[in-house]
């Protein structure tokens, strides 16, 4: 058996001297998996993404990414934030080029890659637009295209579609899976939507809160490629019900 791509071993996390956010969390993720992190607010799922990305230090325990420290492995990862985080003074294509520009790639070459990524997310007609001219869903597409320019091994997504309407969210879910067929990245996906988690993931990690612990890892049995039909099948609905039940068991009832 090959060693896991991301290995999280007994990780504790607290901010400063604050309360414990993550408590002895361990999780191994193999190359090519799509892992969704789901749980009540305050369970530390976004924090876990930040630790993997080395945007925040681990308090105790160890994380390795591709057998390196998260900081050393940062070039193999891309982060997609809750907000599209586009630079309003740059056009769409110049936003997508940003990671390549920072890397020092020449103008023609990076424009070519950016254009290809925009084509992939269906926005090649809006390359010269400014972010303010785009809808919420289009902005998120630009954000995805920007993350893909570096061909990351690992994509970290922090509730990227939470602010979108359901139709747009479903479509972007389908597109994300289609892109993954081509780019083969391993994904960590934070979400509050059970249906979204089931549709996207190979594994769903359910976390409990105060402090954040790993409650249960649920494998999702449906083969890729998944389509609209997958979402409509009774087996899919059944799986959603199952995961919802587990999620309810870790959510405080006093809300």
């Amino acid at each position, binding site marked *: 058996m090959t060693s896991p791509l991301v290995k999280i071993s007994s990780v504790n996390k607290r901010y400063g001297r604050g309360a414990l956010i993550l408590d002895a969390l361990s999780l191994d993720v193999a190359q090519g998996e799509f892992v969704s992190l789901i749980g009540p607010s305050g369970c530390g799922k976004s924090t876990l993404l930040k630790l993997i990305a080395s945007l925040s230090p681990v308090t105790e325990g160890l994380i390795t990414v591709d057998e390196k420290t998260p900081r050393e492995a940062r*070039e193999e990862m891309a982060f997609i934030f809750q907000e599209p*985080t586009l*630079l309003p003074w*740059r056009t769409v294509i110049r936003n997508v080029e940003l990671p390549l*520009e920072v890397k020092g790639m020449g103008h023609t070459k990076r424009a070519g890659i950016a254009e290809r990524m925009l084509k992939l997310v269906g926005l090649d007609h809006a390359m010269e637009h400014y972010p*303010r001219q785009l809808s919420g869903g289009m902005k998120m597409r630009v954000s995805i295209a920007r993350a893909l320019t570096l061909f990351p091994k690992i994509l970290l997504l922090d509730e990227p579609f939470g602010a979108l309407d359901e139709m747009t969210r479903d479509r972007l879910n389908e597109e994300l899976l289609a892109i993954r067929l081509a780019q083969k990245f391993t994904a960590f996906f934070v979400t509050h939507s059970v249906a979204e988690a089931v549709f996207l993931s190979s594994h769903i990690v359910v976390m409990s809160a105060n402090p954040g612990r790993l409650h249960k890892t649920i494998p999702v049995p449906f083969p890729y490629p998944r389509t609209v039909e997958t979402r409509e099948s009774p087996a899919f609905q059944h799986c959603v019900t199952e995961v919802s039940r587990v999620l309810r068991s870790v959510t405080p009832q006093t809300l």
Partner: protein
Amino acid sequence: MRKNLKWFLPVLTGMLILAAWVGLKAGFGIRNFVLPGPLTILRAAAAERTVLLSAAEITISGAALGFVLAAVIGILASMVMGLSAALRLSLYPYILILQMTPVIIFAPVMVIWLGPGLPTVTFITFLICFFPIVANTTQGLISVDKNLVDLFRMINADPVQEVILLRVPHALPYFLTGLKIAGSIAMIGGITGDLFAGNASGNSGGLGYMVLVYEGELKVPELWAAGFTACFCGFIFVSFVLGLNWYLLHKWHDSIIKSDL
């Protein structure tokens, strides 16, 4: 219709004010040295145009130099304070002290240090324009969204790239706000400077100096003419900044997009 109103309403207000002015003056028989009529002022301005124009030129030179100096040094100071919290904490209280001390008190000191004339006028303008530029630009440099900073860390941007590609463009609208405030008060700096140090070139000085001369000679319509000249010069500054603001922001910034809907 709406576009016509935009011009029509202020023009109408102006006419009403002029009518009230002329009406009050005639109705109450107000004498010229208390309140001259608009036409009298225009005539005085025409008669004094050579003096007023050269005075305006002197004042504008001082105000413009001080304004540009404040912008350049303001940007540099903001960069220093925006990029290092330690330097910001060290310097900011003293910039505040500089701002809190009335510039009128600096003026005589400056005359002693720099002598009367352009350097002093420039320096006084610089003093009053500096603070709004520094305060706003620094704010812009440090108020970048945390997620954007994280994004730059994720793509392994070095600190210089973070400043040039993220912080500086983000601070641009803040800088322009500071520049707008500075532009609207630059003439005050110039005229304050004139009042204290205006008698540099023999018998004529800047607008502030001419105000003193007209006051001494009880030339009240000329005094008003000098006032309107200063006001007009102020508009030149503000138009320049508004033009620059539009040029730099119209493609992407909400402040401009919304206003032209």
